[in-house]
């Protein structure tokens, strides 16, 4: 695809430095790229690559601004030298912005209609009544039903998808020439993401705006981008048309990034490992040496999971219910009940991995917590190794705690920030009175090595580690007690793509080595295909479909499973699923 | 200790009212009084009850003096003058016959009768009233002879009877009004120069002129606004900023400051006096030598200077003001500051190594803590370690009444200008000090009984000299100093006469009908 000739936005040699107590850090280093009229440029990078700072610095919204050098030319004007008053005229009218978290980006104390009216009244001479009428029309346009009523709603009264639609309405209200969208769909469920992207590009086509789309998700990039800018540690490592970037990346980082992105359409190969990115820091402070690593498949498995029926399941969940009572009436009767888990049956065989997949609010984490005996079911039973989990106490409960471990989603929250990682890892041993202090130390050192960390790290605190490293520490902690069953609750969701692959590989390796049984809870279908033996799809507290992994992917029975599968962004370049289709918004309103 | 609104009983002391400002009287007479106007008066006392028989602090005295009238009263020179009784006769030492004024009416319009007098005096005697003058009148009988004549008799000769009945607390109330269920604590119906217009307990009272007052030409003021301002700073600042015309209880630190200012006048004279009370039942304070040692150790001049800024005359002898007829000059320098003597007395008592004890001190007022600290420093010189323990008033009362103290700093106000007050202070049957700790000095008891039984002044002088000698010898209290009580007012406030001694608290009340604003 050839690029339209005239650049709307031209970033030239943008460099941003921040001064902190610790010294000066260069957040953005000599950045140059262009966005032409009507074009979609994707800014791709992992966390900390500087992509969001770039987006904000175009609108001069970084606070405090830091040292900014270079030029940001928009329609011929250098935005970096404009007066603050002129910038306020540019913001919202010429260039608008969509943020990642619709909950935090909308003012919680202001009606959504008023938030749209505000942007209209800043930039145009309109009466409040007219502005409101236009706001309602806009809400209607972005697919919000009963727009006149919803205009009077507060953000918290709307669902995540609806909030993001409101954001889009705000961003489009003044018909901007350029929309900067900063991870606008990352916080959304995959099915909602599809609808919101649909709407976004619909609107873009209608307004003829250009778009700078910031994302970490190559799947999304493949579906939407004209031009891709790949960032790494504040620099551009590569840019070019989307086909070139995805099909024939020139830079090792891009190549590794593309390779490590899981492919939802690739059939499961038992023992196969995900490609990873290997980073070797260079001594002179320049960019590290990066290469893509494709591990050899593990051909032999220590313990092939026993097929159903031949042995007893390790975990048996029977008609499990979990209700949360939010409010009681005067008489003490519950009046507001959330039924998080509604009659779930599930069996997990020893040595196997079962993936529990569902969108937010489906009850999958509650189910996991019940299985780990961190929550008490309202009804139904969970049997672990033949024993009813709810009835465990004393020594039996202690044994259960050794056998069952959980790995949590957020590696920043799951490690006690005030304890050295060695302590955290050996806590389980200390609680259960296993081993002497020296033995523990050696054991922890061993574990650290096993999860790919250096034994010297034992006396460090969690904040000294990156997210991926922390998740490895959490895994080491879970393994310290030699558990039989591990619940991984969105254990890789918070990690960058490259790190995610490494952690998944580690989990797979450990499963081989120790014969672990996994319950792998995830919202992301693309990672589970390679990783799990069986898949259970959960929706609104119920399991709608359960079966062998390949069966589910190849021949989904339930309509919801099919919708989920369809919504996963594919990293197939040139697909451009959303571009220029001019779909009617009616399709975008489904499922809200 | 009449500073706050705490309830105190009156007392009589061997002193007639001292006139401290005769020149004032002259200058007042030289000017022509004006009628009308409002006096804004700030008082430290938070008066919570207007019951004219139950003591409620110094401003209470002023208020009831203005609202009610006793049978007889005190003139500015301390002599007894007619009030509701236009004349009286004393047929013997036990009896007084009062002849009432004609046509006196209460504020509600009912006429005053002899029956009201009988009712009032019996109300004072009735233990239920808890009246201030009850102990002085126990056993007295009141007889209505005719509508305007009343006879009051005591079972024994009583030299103090007339002086007692002349106190404001001897107010005559209306029988009909009280028996009609009126709350005398919050309302007032008297025969005084002013009637009560507004009253909020502990906050303010507004008095209006009683046009039917039985003294012609009085009162001169139309209105008296009494504001009860406990905070010294607030009271003084209100005067300085012109929000008040007159304040009582000028803080000692401010007496000189205000005196130096051209638009204010400050009158002060001795009133209450400060003491160290011993619990004579506790060792080692049962030994008079120890108590005398304390009396020698205390540097009264230092206290007068530090705590009272020179406005607190030291008491080296008995607490009788020098202008009292009962003043004995040769006793006046009895205890000079003499640490050596104190040490040797302690040694005699077997306490050469000194002793430790707790001095109970009221927490609410700076002069107490300051005085206590000087005493503490003085005692340290003779090897006595005093620990100051600050207590609130309720606690102090409880300790006093149960005798749970070694020693306490206590302020005593003089209420009656008669030396019979010693019986109240030291008498074995008086619950004021002696009874709760079981102190009984037979020598003193005899002397006090004699003093009360005779009405011949010369005899009484001799008896009370012996009383004072005995008190100094045994030193159940260490008398420390007089507290000067000062009133400060704007120069345009005229007609005020400041009285000393026992009438100090009543000064404003006595002057009020004659006062005016220039």
């Amino acid at each position, binding site marked *: 695809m050839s690029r339209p000739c005239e650049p709307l936005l031209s970033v030239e040699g943008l460099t941003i430095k921040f001064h902190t107590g610790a010294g000066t850090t260069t957040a953005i280093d000599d950045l140059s790229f262009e966005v032409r009229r009507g074009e979609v440029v994707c800014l791709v990078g992992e966390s900390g690559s500087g992509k969001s700072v770039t987006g904000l610095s175009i609108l001069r919204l970084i606070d405090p601004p830091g040292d900014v050098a270079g030029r940001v030319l928009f329609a011929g004007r250098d935005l970096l030298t404009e007066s603050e008053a002129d910038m306020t005229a540019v913001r919202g009218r010429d260039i608008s912005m969509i943020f990642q978290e619709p909950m935090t980006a*909308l003012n919680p104390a202001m009606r959504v209609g008023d938030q749209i009216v505000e942007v209209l009244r800043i930039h145009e001479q309109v009466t409040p009544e007219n502005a409101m009428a236009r706001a309602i029309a806009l809400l209607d346009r972005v697919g919000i039903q009963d727009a006149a009523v919803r205009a009077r709603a507060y953000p918290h009264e709307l669902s995540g998808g609806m909030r993001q639609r409101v954001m889009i309405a705000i961003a489009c209200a003044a018909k901007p020439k350029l929309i900067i969208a900063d991870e606008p769909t990352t916080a959304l469920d995959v099915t909602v993401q599809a609808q919101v992207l649909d709407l976004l590009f619909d609107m873009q086509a209608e307004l003829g705006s250009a778009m700078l789309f910031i994302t970490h998700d190559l799947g999304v990039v493949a579906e939407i981008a004209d031009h891709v800018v790949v960032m790494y540690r504040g620099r551009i490592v590569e840019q070019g048309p989307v086909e070139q970037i995805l099909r024939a990346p020139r830079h090792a980082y891009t190549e590794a990034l593309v390779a490590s992105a899981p492919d939802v359409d690739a059939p499961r190969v038992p023992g196969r490992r995900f490609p990873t990115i290997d980073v070797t820091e260079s001594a002179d402070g320049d960019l590290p040496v990066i290469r893509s690593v494709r591990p050899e498949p593990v051909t032999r498995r220590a313990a092939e999971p026993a097929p159903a029926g031949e042995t007893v399941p390790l975990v048996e969940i029977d008609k499990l219910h979990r209700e949360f009572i939010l409010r009681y009436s005067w008489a003490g009767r519950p009046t507001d009940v959330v039924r998080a888990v509604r009659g779930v049956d599930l069996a997990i065989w020893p040595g196997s991995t079962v993936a529990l997949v569902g969108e937010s609010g489906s009850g999958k984490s509650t189910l996991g917590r019940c299985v780990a005996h961190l929550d008490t079911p309202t009804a139904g039973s969970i049997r672990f190794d033949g024993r009813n989990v709810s009835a465990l106490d004393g020594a039996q409960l202690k044994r259960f705690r050794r056998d069952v471990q959980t790995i949590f989603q957020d590696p920043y929250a799951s490690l006690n920030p005030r304890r050295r990682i060695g302590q955290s890892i050996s806590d389980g041993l200390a609680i259960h009175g296993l081993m002497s202090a020296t033995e523990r130390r050696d054991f922890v050192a061993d574990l650290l090595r096993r999860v790919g960390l250096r034994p010297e790290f034992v006396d460090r605190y969690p904040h000294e580690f990156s997210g991926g490293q922390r998740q490895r520490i959490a895994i080491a902690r879970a393994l310290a007690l030699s558990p039989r069953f591990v619940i991984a609750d969105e254990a890789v969701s918070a990690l960058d793509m490259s790190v995610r692959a490494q952690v998944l590989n580690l989990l797979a390796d450990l499963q081989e080595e120790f014969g672990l049984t996994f319950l792998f809870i995830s919202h992301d279908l693309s990672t589970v295909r390679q990783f799990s033996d069986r898949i259970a799809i959960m929706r609104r507290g119920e399991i709608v479909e359960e079966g062998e992994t390949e069966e589910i992917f190849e021949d989904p029975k339930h309509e919801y499973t099919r919708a989920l599968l369809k919504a996963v962004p594919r990293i197939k370049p040139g697909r451009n699923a959303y571009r220029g289709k001019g779909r009617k918004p009616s399709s975008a309103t489904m499922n809200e | 200790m009449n500073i706050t609104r705490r*309830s105190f009983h009156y007392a009589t002391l061997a002193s007639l009212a001292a006139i401290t400002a005769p020149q004032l009287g002259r200058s007042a007479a030289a000017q022509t009084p004006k009628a009308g106007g409002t006096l804004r008066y700030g008082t430290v006392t938070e008066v*919570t009850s207007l019951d004219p028989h139950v003591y409620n602090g110094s401003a209470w005295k002023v208020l009831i003096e203005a609202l009610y009238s006793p049978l007889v009263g005190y003139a500015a020179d301390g002599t007894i003058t007619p009030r509701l009784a236009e004349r009286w006769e004393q047929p013997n030492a036990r009896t007084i016959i009062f002849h009432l004024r004609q046509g006196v009416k209460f504020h509600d319009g009912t006429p005053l009768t002899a029956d009201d007098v009988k009712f009032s005096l019996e109300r004072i005697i009735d233990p239920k009233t808890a009246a201030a003058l009850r102990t002085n009148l126990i056993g007295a009988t009141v007889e209505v002879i005719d509508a305007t004549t009343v006879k009051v008799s005591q079972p024994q000769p009583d030299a103090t009877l007339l002086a007692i009945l002349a106190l404001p607390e001897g107010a005559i109330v209306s029988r009909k009004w009280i028996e009609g269920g009126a*709350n005398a604590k919050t309302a007032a119906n008297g025969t005084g120069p002013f009637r009560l217009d507004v009253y*909020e*307990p502990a906050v303010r009272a507004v008095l209006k002129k009683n046009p039917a007052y039985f003294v012609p030409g009085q009162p001169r003021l139309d209105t008296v606004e009494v504001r009860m301002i406990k905070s010294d700073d607030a009271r003084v600042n*209100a005067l300085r*900023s012109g929000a008040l015309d007159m304040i009582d209880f000028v803080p000692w630190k401010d007496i000189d400051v205000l005196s130096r200012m051209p638009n204010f006048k400050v009158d002060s004279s001795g009133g209450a006096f400060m003491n160290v009370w011993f619990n004579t039942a506790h060792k080692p304070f049962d030994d008079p030598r120890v108590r005398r040692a304390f009396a020698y150790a205390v540097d009264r001049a230092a206290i007068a200077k530090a705590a009272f800024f020179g406005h607190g005359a030291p008491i080296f002898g008995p607490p009788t003001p020098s202008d009292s007829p009962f003043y004995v000059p040769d006793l006046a320098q009895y205890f000079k500051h003499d640490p050596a003597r104190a040490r040797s007395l302690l040694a005699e008592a077997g306490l050469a190594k000194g002793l430790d004890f707790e001095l109970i001190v009221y927490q609410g007022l700076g002069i107490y803590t300051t005085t206590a600290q000087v005493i503490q420093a003085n005692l340290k010189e003779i090897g006595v370690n005093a620990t100051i323990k600050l207590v609130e008033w*309720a606690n102090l009362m409880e300790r006093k009444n149960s005798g749970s103290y070694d020693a306490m700093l206590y302020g005593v106000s003089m209420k009656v200008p008669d030396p019979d007050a010693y019986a109240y202070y030291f008498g074995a049957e008086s*619950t004021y000090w002696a009874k709760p700790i079981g102190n009984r000095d037979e020598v003193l008891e005899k002397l006090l009984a004699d003093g009360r039984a005779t009405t011949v002044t010369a005899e009484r002088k001799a008896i009370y000299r012996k009383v004072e000698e005995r008190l100094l010898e045994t030193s159940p209290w260490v008398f420390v100093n007089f507290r000067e009580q000062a009133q400060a007012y704007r120069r345009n406030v005229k007609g005020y006469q400041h009285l000393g001694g026992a009438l100090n608290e009543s000064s404003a009340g006595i002057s009020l009908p004659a006062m005016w604003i220039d």
Partner: protein
Amino acid sequence: MHRFVAHRFVSSLITMALASIVVFLSIHLLPGDPVVMVLGEQAGADPMAVARVRAELGLDLPLPTQFVRWASAVLHGDLGHSLRSGEPVVAELARRIPRSLEIIFGGLVAAVVFGIPLGTIAARDRGRVSGLIASIVAIAGFSAPVFVSGIILVLIFSLWLGLLPSSGYVALDDDPLTHFACLVLPCVAIGINFMGVVARMTRSSLIDTLSKDYVRMARAKGLTRGQAMTRHALPNALVPVIAIVGIRAGNLLGGTVIVEALFDWPGLSSLLVSACFARDYPVMQGCLLSIFAIFIVISLLIDIAQSIVDPRVRTGTK
């Protein structure tokens, strides 16, 4: 929302019942005898007189009986009579409470009027000299004991400049002008003291809010920094400030003793303190009970105010 408030109300009533028991017990177990205080220096030491008055006042009954009597009277709206003045406690409270509320309200207004701008400057200019100065001015307000700042106020405004009365209270219907003139200094004294709390709370809450995406979003819409601050950041940042102002207002009910004494303002605190020192049980109980009751009303008002500012509170989703 109604249910939310009603729920709070009922649980507050339980709290209040609990509180009244605590108060009753602590008052009656206090050393110091109200009877002695009634009888005074001399009669108070006469055991017979004490016993008689004690019986008259019903203070000789077992504590639970006394409590039940008192509580049932309270439920009938009778708080008893002051032991000192014989006045109904209700009448006394009816006079004092409005005055207390007046200076507290005035003080809070002063605190908010000065505190919020200071806090806003301190948050906006964090890391700059102006922010530092704003912070220090705010902190300075409550770093001085109120009796020191109060005296300084009197010195300046009353004795030096002669602008305002140094102290006193004049009823509103007697003389409205003087009434408000008297009100100024005590309110400013409370306000200066409390301004720091408001400013600090505003500052930390605002710093938090300013980092929120919706503030950035507001600027991305084209609002100026100031507009984003006043329209988006401040309203949200004020939610916790409202709570602190309300709670503090409650605390001030019994906490303005020094100000009331300094400025001779006959409010609830000084009544409570003088009743405490005199062991005037009915008045003490009445004061505390009304403080609790006002506390409850204030906390309801906080809830309502917060729900106006923050709609999330209304539905309880926060």
